[in-house]
Protein backbone atom coordinates (compact mmCIF):
# COMPACT_ATOMS: atom_id res chain seq x y z
CA UNK A 1 0.00 0.00 0.00
CA UNK A 2 1.30 3.44 -0.95
CA UNK A 3 2.02 5.69 2.00
CA UNK A 4 2.92 9.37 2.32
CA UNK A 5 3.97 11.00 5.59
CA UNK A 6 4.50 14.73 5.90
CA UNK A 7 6.33 16.52 8.68
CA UNK A 8 6.00 18.66 10.60
CA UNK A 9 2.20 18.79 10.91
CA UNK A 10 2.40 22.52 11.57
CA UNK A 11 5.18 25.09 11.25
CA UNK A 12 5.32 28.70 12.35
CA UNK A 13 7.97 30.96 10.83
CA UNK A 14 8.83 34.60 11.05
CA UNK A 15 8.88 36.50 7.78
CA UNK A 16 12.27 35.92 6.17
CA UNK A 17 13.04 32.77 8.21
CA UNK A 18 13.84 29.98 5.75
CA UNK A 19 12.88 26.36 6.43
CA UNK A 20 12.01 23.01 4.83
CA UNK A 21 8.98 20.73 4.77
CA UNK A 22 9.45 16.98 4.50
CA UNK A 23 7.49 14.35 2.57
CA UNK A 24 8.48 10.71 3.10
CA UNK A 25 6.93 8.11 0.84
CA UNK A 26 6.67 4.37 0.40
CA UNK A 27 5.49 3.40 -3.05
CA UNK A 28 6.05 0.63 -5.53
CA UNK A 29 7.35 2.18 -8.72
CA UNK A 30 7.11 5.95 -8.32
CA UNK A 31 5.76 7.64 -11.45
CA UNK A 32 5.57 11.14 -10.02
CA UNK A 33 5.63 13.15 -6.80
CA UNK A 34 3.46 16.25 -6.64
CA UNK A 35 3.40 19.29 -4.38
CA UNK A 36 0.26 21.34 -3.96
CA UNK A 37 -0.62 24.42 -1.93
CA UNK A 38 -4.06 24.64 -0.35
CA UNK A 39 -5.66 27.73 1.18
CA UNK A 40 -8.48 27.22 3.73
CA UNK A 41 -11.73 26.05 2.12
CA UNK A 42 -10.24 25.99 -1.38
CA UNK A 43 -8.99 23.35 -3.78
CA UNK A 44 -5.30 22.39 -3.96
CA UNK A 45 -3.18 24.57 -6.27
CA UNK A 46 -0.49 22.78 -8.26
CA UNK A 47 3.12 23.72 -7.51
CA UNK A 48 5.57 21.07 -8.76
CA UNK A 49 5.90 17.61 -10.26
CA UNK A 50 9.10 15.60 -9.68
CA UNK A 51 9.76 12.34 -11.52
CA UNK A 52 13.18 11.01 -10.54
CA UNK A 53 15.69 11.12 -7.69
CA UNK A 54 17.98 14.11 -7.91
CA UNK A 55 15.45 16.27 -9.70
CA UNK A 56 14.90 19.83 -8.43
CA UNK A 57 12.35 22.48 -9.39
CA UNK A 58 12.01 26.11 -8.31
CA UNK A 59 9.28 28.70 -8.33
CA UNK A 60 9.77 32.06 -6.66
CA UNK A 61 10.63 31.36 -3.00
CA UNK A 62 9.93 27.62 -3.27
CA UNK A 63 12.27 24.80 -4.28
CA UNK A 64 11.32 21.13 -4.37
CA UNK A 65 13.82 18.27 -4.33
CA UNK A 66 13.43 14.50 -4.60
CA UNK A 67 15.37 11.49 -3.33
CA UNK A 68 14.46 7.81 -3.52
CA UNK A 69 12.61 7.97 -0.20
CA UNK A 70 11.59 11.57 0.40
CA UNK A 71 11.01 15.01 -1.00
CA UNK A 72 11.69 18.39 0.53
CA UNK A 73 9.97 21.68 -0.09
CA UNK A 74 12.42 24.46 0.78
CA UNK A 75 10.97 27.89 1.48
CA UNK A 76 13.47 30.75 1.25
CA UNK A 77 12.73 34.06 2.96
CA UNK A 78 9.00 33.35 3.28
CA UNK A 79 6.36 36.06 3.30
CA UNK A 80 2.98 36.07 5.09
CA UNK A 81 1.25 35.27 1.79
CA UNK A 82 3.08 31.92 1.77
CA UNK A 83 0.89 30.84 4.70
CA UNK A 84 -1.13 27.80 3.60
CA UNK A 85 -1.26 24.02 3.88
CA UNK A 86 1.28 22.28 1.66
CA UNK A 87 0.26 18.84 0.40
CA UNK A 88 2.50 16.14 -1.02
CA UNK A 89 1.11 13.34 -3.21
CA UNK A 90 2.54 10.34 -5.07
CA UNK A 91 1.47 8.54 -8.17
CA UNK A 92 2.52 4.88 -8.27
CA UNK A 93 3.13 2.71 -11.28
CA UNK A 94 0.59 0.03 -10.36
CA UNK A 95 -2.06 2.51 -9.19
CA UNK A 96 -2.71 4.18 -12.51
CA UNK A 97 -3.05 7.92 -12.17
CA UNK A 98 -4.62 8.03 -8.71
CA UNK A 99 -2.85 10.28 -6.24
CA UNK A 100 -2.10 9.24 -2.66
CA UNK A 101 -1.80 12.29 -0.44
CA UNK A 102 -0.14 13.00 2.87
CA UNK A 103 -1.96 14.86 5.64
CA UNK A 104 -0.22 18.13 4.79
CA UNK A 105 1.93 20.68 6.63
CA UNK A 106 0.15 23.80 7.82
CA UNK A 107 2.56 26.72 7.39
CA UNK A 108 2.05 30.06 9.10
CA UNK A 109 4.38 32.95 8.33
CA UNK A 110 4.15 35.85 10.77
CA UNK A 111 5.06 39.39 9.69
Amino acid at each position, binding site marked *: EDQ*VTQSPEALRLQEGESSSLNCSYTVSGL*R*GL*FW*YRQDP*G*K*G*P*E*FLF*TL*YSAGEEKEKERLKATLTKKESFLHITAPKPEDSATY*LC*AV*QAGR*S*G*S*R*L*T*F*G*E*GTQLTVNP
Partner: protein
Amino acid sequence: DAGVTQSPTHLIKTRGQQVTLRCSPKSGHDTVSWYQQALGQGPQFIFQYYEEEERQRGNFPDRFSGHQFPNYSSELNVNALLLGDSALYLCASRGSGSTDTQYFGPGTRLTVL
Protein backbone atom coordinates in the same frame (compact mmCIF):
# COMPACT_ATOMS: atom_id res chain seq x y z
CA ASP B 1 -8.45 29.53 -20.12
CA ALA B 2 -11.05 28.30 -17.62
CA GLY B 3 -9.79 25.98 -14.95
CA VAL B 4 -11.71 23.19 -13.29
CA THR B 5 -15.13 24.33 -12.12
CA GLN B 6 -17.44 22.69 -9.59
CA SER B 7 -21.00 23.26 -8.46
CA PRO B 8 -22.52 23.90 -6.07
CA THR B 9 -20.06 25.64 -3.75
CA HIS B 10 -21.82 24.57 -0.58
CA LEU B 11 -24.55 22.07 0.16
CA ILE B 12 -26.42 21.06 3.30
CA LYS B 13 -28.27 17.74 3.41
CA THR B 14 -29.76 15.49 6.06
CA ARG B 15 -28.92 11.87 6.78
CA GLY B 16 -30.42 9.42 4.30
CA GLN B 17 -30.74 11.93 1.49
CA GLN B 18 -29.02 11.75 -1.88
CA VAL B 19 -26.73 14.38 -3.42
CA THR B 20 -25.27 15.12 -6.86
CA LEU B 21 -22.12 17.20 -7.33
CA ARG B 22 -20.94 18.48 -10.71
CA CYS B 23 -17.55 19.14 -12.31
CA SER B 24 -16.36 20.63 -15.58
CA PRO B 25 -12.73 19.81 -16.41
CA LYS B 26 -10.03 22.21 -17.52
CA SER B 27 -10.05 22.94 -21.24
CA GLY B 28 -8.29 20.17 -23.16
CA HIS B 29 -8.57 17.62 -20.35
CA ASP B 30 -10.48 14.37 -20.77
CA THR B 31 -9.93 12.54 -17.47
CA VAL B 32 -11.73 13.45 -14.26
CA SER B 33 -11.04 12.19 -10.75
CA TRP B 34 -12.98 12.78 -7.56
CA TYR B 35 -11.48 13.09 -4.08
CA GLN B 36 -12.96 13.44 -0.60
CA GLN B 37 -11.17 15.65 1.91
CA ALA B 38 -12.22 15.53 5.55
CA LEU B 39 -11.30 18.47 7.75
CA GLY B 40 -7.61 18.50 8.61
CA GLN B 41 -6.77 15.55 6.34
CA GLY B 42 -5.35 15.02 2.88
CA PRO B 43 -7.66 14.24 -0.05
CA GLN B 44 -8.72 10.59 -0.49
CA PHE B 45 -9.24 9.16 -4.01
CA ILE B 46 -12.82 8.12 -4.77
CA PHE B 47 -12.76 7.21 -8.47
CA GLN B 48 -11.64 8.29 -11.92
CA TYR B 49 -13.53 8.58 -15.21
CA TYR B 50 -12.14 8.42 -18.72
CA GLU B 51 -14.07 7.90 -21.95
CA GLU B 52 -17.31 7.90 -19.95
CA GLU B 53 -16.29 4.84 -17.93
CA GLU B 54 -15.07 4.38 -14.35
CA ARG B 55 -11.43 3.35 -14.73
CA GLN B 56 -10.18 3.25 -11.16
CA ARG B 57 -11.89 3.21 -7.77
CA GLY B 58 -10.64 3.89 -4.28
CA ASN B 59 -11.86 2.35 -1.04
CA PHE B 60 -15.34 3.86 -1.03
CA PRO B 61 -18.70 2.05 -0.77
CA ASP B 62 -21.14 1.62 -3.63
CA ARG B 63 -23.17 4.53 -2.23
CA PHE B 64 -20.65 6.63 -4.13
CA SER B 65 -21.22 6.54 -7.89
CA GLY B 66 -20.40 8.75 -10.80
CA HIS B 67 -20.86 9.53 -14.43
CA GLN B 68 -18.92 11.20 -17.20
CA PHE B 69 -20.62 12.89 -20.13
CA PRO B 70 -19.46 13.14 -23.77
CA ASN B 71 -18.19 16.69 -23.10
CA TYR B 72 -15.94 15.23 -20.34
CA SER B 73 -17.88 16.85 -17.51
CA SER B 74 -18.66 14.60 -14.57
CA GLU B 75 -21.08 14.02 -11.70
CA LEU B 76 -20.54 12.46 -8.30
CA ASN B 77 -23.60 10.93 -6.66
CA VAL B 78 -23.80 9.90 -3.03
CA ASN B 79 -26.82 7.95 -1.79
CA ALA B 80 -28.06 7.34 1.76
CA LEU B 81 -25.92 10.12 3.20
CA LEU B 82 -24.19 9.57 6.54
CA LEU B 83 -22.86 12.16 8.95
CA GLY B 84 -19.35 10.95 8.06
CA ASP B 85 -19.85 11.99 4.43
CA SER B 86 -19.48 15.63 5.49
CA ALA B 87 -16.33 16.81 3.70
CA LEU B 88 -14.90 18.92 0.90
CA TYR B 89 -15.39 17.07 -2.39
CA LEU B 90 -12.73 17.86 -4.95
CA CYS B 91 -12.72 17.26 -8.66
CA ALA B 92 -9.43 17.05 -10.55
CA SER B 93 -8.82 16.86 -14.28
CA ARG B 94 -5.83 15.98 -16.44
CA GLY B 95 -4.91 15.11 -20.00
CA SER B 96 -4.63 11.49 -21.08
CA GLY B 97 -0.88 11.11 -20.46
CA SER B 98 -0.10 8.79 -17.57
CA THR B 99 1.86 11.33 -15.55
CA ASP B 100 0.02 14.46 -16.55
CA THR B 101 -0.50 16.76 -13.61
CA GLN B 102 -3.96 16.78 -12.06
CA TYR B 103 -5.50 20.22 -11.59
CA PHE B 104 -8.10 20.65 -8.88
CA GLY B 105 -11.31 22.63 -8.75
CA PRO B 106 -12.40 24.78 -5.80
CA GLY B 107 -14.41 21.96 -4.27
CA THR B 108 -17.94 21.49 -2.96
CA ARG B 109 -18.39 21.68 0.81
CA LEU B 110 -21.01 19.08 1.80
CA THR B 111 -22.49 19.20 5.28
CA VAL B 112 -24.70 16.30 6.41
CA LEU B 113 -26.91 16.99 9.44
